[in-house]
């Protein structure tokens, strides 16, 4: 770990200001991902701004009948929230499918969205990785890439986004609220937070420097069933091979792309009366395999179809 300086932010405005003004600054919330990466010198921030104690931990009703989730609400608290459990069960299911209880106790809503890939070549600093060291190449491309992306990948990066929670939030049509260093509050669909890798996989979101996620807003729950399913090699505390969140007519896929993947093609096919299988086939028509991950296309198709059918209550 490199030496770094640390400050605890007084309020969100001070946090974003400090983040914009201090070279090499990063926000620290639960620390469940950032600190691990710092120990391995994958992340080498010069300055940490601790936002973990900012008063952004509330989960409150919105006038529209949805929920506004403060970005510092812990994963554990959010999954256990009675309103979430009853109205957004897919979110609770997704959160408890991720990490371990200890991690979920520390991890925050905002931090969960910004966690970084679990790609083995990102973690091993002796290997090339365009995400860790832009321009160095992609070690996974011709490597042991069984769990690489099948949608939206590029030659620069085939890493996946590992969050479970984000997949459910995308299916729920969540929006993100942020605070920018100039004091501007922004609000946009969560679907637009993350980027595909393209030629710059080191740039993972559309946030500007110093911009802080302050909340995630859920619209009223959609009509219809909600289901989260995740496939993994072991029953808990394992990165997923694929996941799917279904909320009414909306479908999102996880661990298959550089971002939580809104399955728009599948949704359109379902709206047009297609079967779950046909809907998933439509979505995955653009999927491509790299080396050893071809099974994920089949797996995702089957998993998605099963989850859609389960949400419909037809299976």
């Amino acid at each position: 770990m490199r030496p770094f300086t640390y400050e605890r932010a007084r309020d969100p405005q001070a946090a974003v200001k400090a983040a914009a003004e201090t070279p090499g600054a990063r926000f620290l919330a639960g620390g469940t991902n950032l600190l691990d990466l710092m120990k391995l010198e994958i992340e080498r921030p010069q300055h940490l701004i601790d936002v973990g104690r900012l008063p952004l931990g509330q989960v409150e009703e919105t006038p529209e009948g949805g929920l506004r989730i403060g970005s510092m609400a812990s994963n554990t608290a959010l999954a256990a929230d009675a309103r979430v459990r009853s109205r957004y069960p897919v979110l609770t299911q997704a959160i408890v499918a991720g990490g371990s209880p200890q991690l979920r106790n520390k991890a925050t809503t905002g931090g969960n969205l910004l966690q970084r890939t679990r790609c083995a070549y990102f973690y091993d600093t002796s290997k090339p990785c365009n995400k860790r060291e832009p321009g160095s190449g992609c070690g996974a491309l011709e490597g042991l890439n069984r769990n690489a992306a099948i949608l939206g990948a590029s030659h620069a990066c085939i890493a996946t986004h590992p969050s479970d929670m984000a997949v459910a939030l995308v299916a729920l049509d969540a929006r993100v609220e942020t605070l920018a260093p100039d004091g501007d509050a922004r609000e946009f669909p969560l679907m637009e937070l993350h980027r595909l890798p393209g030629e710059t996989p080191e740039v993972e979101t559309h946030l500007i420097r110093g911009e802080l996620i302050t909340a995630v807003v859920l619209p009223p729950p959609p009509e219809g069933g909600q289901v989260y399913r995740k496939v993994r090699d072991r029953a808990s505390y394992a990165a997923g091979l694929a996941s799917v969140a279904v909320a009414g007519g909306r479908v999102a896929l996880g661990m298959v792309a550089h971002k939580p993947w809104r399955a728009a093609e599948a949704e359109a096919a379902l709206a047009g009366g297609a079967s779950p299988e046909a809907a998933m086939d439509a979505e995955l028509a653009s999927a491509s395999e790299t080396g050893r991950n071809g099974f994920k296309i089949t797996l995702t198709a089957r998993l998605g179809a099963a989850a859609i059918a389960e949400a419909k209550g037809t299976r």
Partner: protein
Amino acid sequence: MSSVADYALPNPVTDNRSGLIGKGVDRYEGPLKVTGSAPYAYEVTPPSPPAYGVMVPATIACGRIIAVDAKAAEASPGVAAVWTHLNAPEQAPRGTRVHPRSTAPSRPVLEDDRVRFFGQPVAFVLADTLENAQAAAHLVQLTYEEQTPDVDFHGQLAKAEQPPGEEDVEIGDFANGFAQSPAKLDETWCTPIQNHCQMEPCASIAWWDGETCVVHTSVQMVKPAQHGLAETLKIDRDAVHLMTRYIGGGFGGKGQTYDDITLAALGARFLGRPVKVAYSRQHMMHGTIHRPATVQRVRLGATKDGQLTAMSIMTTTHCQRDGHFTEHASNFARSLYAAPNRLTGHRLIHLDLPGAGPMRAPGEASGMLSLECAMDELAEALGMDPIELRIKNEPEVDPETGKPFSLRQLVRCMREGAQLFGWDRRNPRPGQARDGRWMVGMGMAAAIRGNFLLPAKASFSVDRHGVITVRQGMTDIGTGSYTVLAQIAAETLGVPLADVRVEIGDSELPPAPGSGGQFGAATAGSAALAAGMNLRKAIADLAANDPGSPLHGGPAEAVTFQDGVIAIANRSESLASLIARAAPEGLTVEGEHRPAADARNWSQHTYGAHFCEVGVDPVTGETRMRRMLGVFAAGRIINYKTARSQLTGGMIWGVASALTEGNAVDPRYGSLVNQDLASYLVPVQADIGELDAIMLDEADDKANPLGIKGVGELGISGAGAAVANAIYNAVGVRVRDYPITPDKLLGAMLAR
């Protein structure tokens, strides 16, 4: 020299008068461990504040270091030294054994410019704090001349050669016998590299007390660690005082030492202050040994009614370039089933990988994953129950040596297990049972693992309070050594457990081989019994000759020991009062046990039967273990609780081997892909359903004076095969490439 016949004579342990033997006694050191107050090597408090050493692992697998730039590291805050092969302190050349009886040769660190495997420690930083040492370690710049590593095991199977000094073992005429068999099976299984993943990484703290190097480390065997360090440092063996009091898992990976111990000793000498060195979790994967991958070809020939006529396992495996370790995955089959024509052997490939070495049940853990599935396949092909097929081929005597078995209750394990597990509810036709979305199947496998006994010593003391202290250069790697030694001492001297102290893990104590090969309890325990018997005699003689004792005049042979009281008929006094009066400084005696001269006249093993029920999700190919039962025959059980933990721990590892666990080499870099416990998948709580291990009530009076056998490696042997057979019963396809992950199983199900 004793004879096996002597083992059948009664002794306090087999008499078990106070009933301590066999009881589920709590761990002797348990409270220390669960409260975090047991000092593991890295946590031992040294006599003065320590410095910290951090190793820099090589980032290539094969080549030479052609330039070193340590300037930035040396200038980094708190750094006291940066060592590479260019400036490392002098050590004995590799393999030196100055003292002819050293149990390990020298293992110098940073010895030359050659890189032999990815992760080899190639530089070392000493600093005032761990953080400063770690930060500086990242600043050491090494330039390599890289050679393409030769690491592709599966690509080079044809190049494999007979391990040096070994020959295939053939009985009868295998080729002819197999060719003429009415029913045949010829299939190949693959097992991956596995890493030990002990909870406690390898770690050492060392300081110098005058000319003596005092070192606390984490190692399974005390004497080789002490001797190897002394040879490396070119000092007398007595000038190394090595301790290993608490060990957070070994599994064979700590049967040897690594560079942490040498660097701690050298660093402490250089700085004149204590030095701590530990491997990081990531570095453990490459910097220490692993269980090598295997490819096993199994051929079985049988009559239509299930009599095996020919049997063969041929294993191909790998080890490091300059090594010779062979994963003997075929050996166990030599004693398991009867068949007139038999062929077993091994082939070895040398690769530019880290060292291959022993891991829990070396041989059996990999090998039983093939043969015990092959037996399941053969049973199905013959329309037989897999248990009945095994019983039909149960040998009367060892099928290769013709020696009698010391005690073999394999059939009883299978029959009792079948009844307890509900085997009769298994539908032999696969793919028939469902529970919700899960397809459910049952499988079983036999277990066999050799039983061994080595020479060992121990000392026993009694003090004026009647407290017995056992001292032995034994180790406890989480198995229960402390506890079983306390039980043996308490039973032998007739004192309550609370009046027993156990001191182990110290090179200055009477030597014992340590923990490995599931010989620990029998070896250490037999020596403890011998020492305890010597102490009984010394106490009896003391009482018989002490005019102040009611036992004065003896006869010494008639003295009994129970509840802290010594007695001859109705004459008695407390042990404490005798010692306080007649030997206030206490008594200390040694004892020793050496294996009986005729021990090799018996074929001696431990046995078991595993039963497993799994669920497979037909949509995703995910397998989850639902329930598992093992029934084991391993001689007399000293401690029901610690033995059961050993067995269930082994079974859990078997579940891992079948479903999740393994590592893979990236052939471009010669490195392993899984480098932490988030990616190297050992089971978590949620992976293990209902699990139980049952031990038959037996005693093997050919094994040792205690009648006990090992359990540490039996539990994993065959366990994974039961899981694999259950998967087949659930879904009707076989995956012979472990672990059986969703991608492989779903692929096989869809290909059907």
